[in-house]
């Protein structure tokens, strides 16, 4: 059966990425399988966040690694493999998103006024480690719901910068945005999330505006 031959469980968990990439390029499917396993969960999460649709996210996941395999020889060693596949995944995810949203007003390319409406409505202090009040599962639910409520242009930037931890430049590159656009969208996203999370994380007994 080719199934077990092609993608065996690898014993290469500790092998460094550039070695795995080099081996994959030479046709080592075990090495490629290890690269997939290393990043599949992150790519799936990224795809879910951008597309907001599980079916699309699964397509994106498969397409990303198939394209990566197909174009491995085009991967330049000067960026990280992970950054490279993130860029592939973002492209695939944005295509899905655009296909679903025929309404141009939600286009990711749209110029957004990020000036005056960066309003902070709720100012309440949080506990030192507010996340510890919740179970892992509850916390995951709270954080996911908050991200999902962001408009797509903010969500994509936040996901790449603060969840996948790409640099500003890498995020700009992946989304086809200017660096100032990434920065202003990131600020908006962070402030909106801060506002949404305040409901859960504010110090007990403190009212909003307690400091005003």
């Amino acid at each position, binding site marked *: 059966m*080719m*199934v077990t031959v*092609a*993608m065996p469980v690898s014993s290469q968990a500790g092998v460094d990425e550039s070695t795995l990439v080099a081996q994959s390029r030479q046709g080592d*499917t075990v090495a*490629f*399988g290890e690269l*997939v396993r290393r990043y*599949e*969960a*992150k790519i*799936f*999460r990224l795809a879910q966040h951008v597309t907001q649709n599980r079916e699309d996210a*699964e397509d994106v*996941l*498969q397409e990303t*690694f*198939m394209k990566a*395999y*197909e174009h491995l020889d085009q991967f330049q060693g000067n960026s990280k493999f992970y950054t490279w596949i993130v860029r592939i995944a973002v492209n695939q995810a944005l295509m899905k998103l655009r296909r679903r949203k025929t309404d141009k007003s939600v286009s990711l390319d749209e110029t957004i006024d990020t000036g005056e409406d*960066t309003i*902070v409505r709720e*100012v*309440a*202090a*949080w506990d030192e480690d*507010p*996340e510890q009040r919740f179970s892992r599962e509850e*916390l*995951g639910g709270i*954080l996911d719901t908050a*991200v999902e409520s962001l408009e797509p242009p903010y969500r994509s930037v*936040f996901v790449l910068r*603060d*969840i996948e*931890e790409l640099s500003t430049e890498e995020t700009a590159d992946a989304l086809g945005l200017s660096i100032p656009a990434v*920065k202003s969208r*990131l*600020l908006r996203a*962070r*402030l909106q*999330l*801060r506002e949404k*999370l*305040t409901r859960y*994380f504010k110090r007990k007994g403190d009212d909003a505006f307690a*400091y*005003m």
Partner: protein
Amino acid sequence: MLTCKDFLKELSDYLDETVDKEVLAKLERHITECPNCWVIADTTRKTIRVYKGMDPHPLPSDVESRLMRALEKKIAAGKSGQTT
């Protein structure tokens, strides 16, 4: 004097530690004098921190097996095989 609006505009760069020394000094002076901006900076920093600390869920097993099947097919077809 920096206004709260000026402070907010620099907040992301401040939290990412990408502002230069001069601006940094102004921002830090502002938050020692402005409790509101201190709270906003602190809670925004924590917002970023909780998201960074989240590991992705492992792939659901059905998604995982479909991914592996798709890749096996692709590999079996070869790089020079039919591509999309």
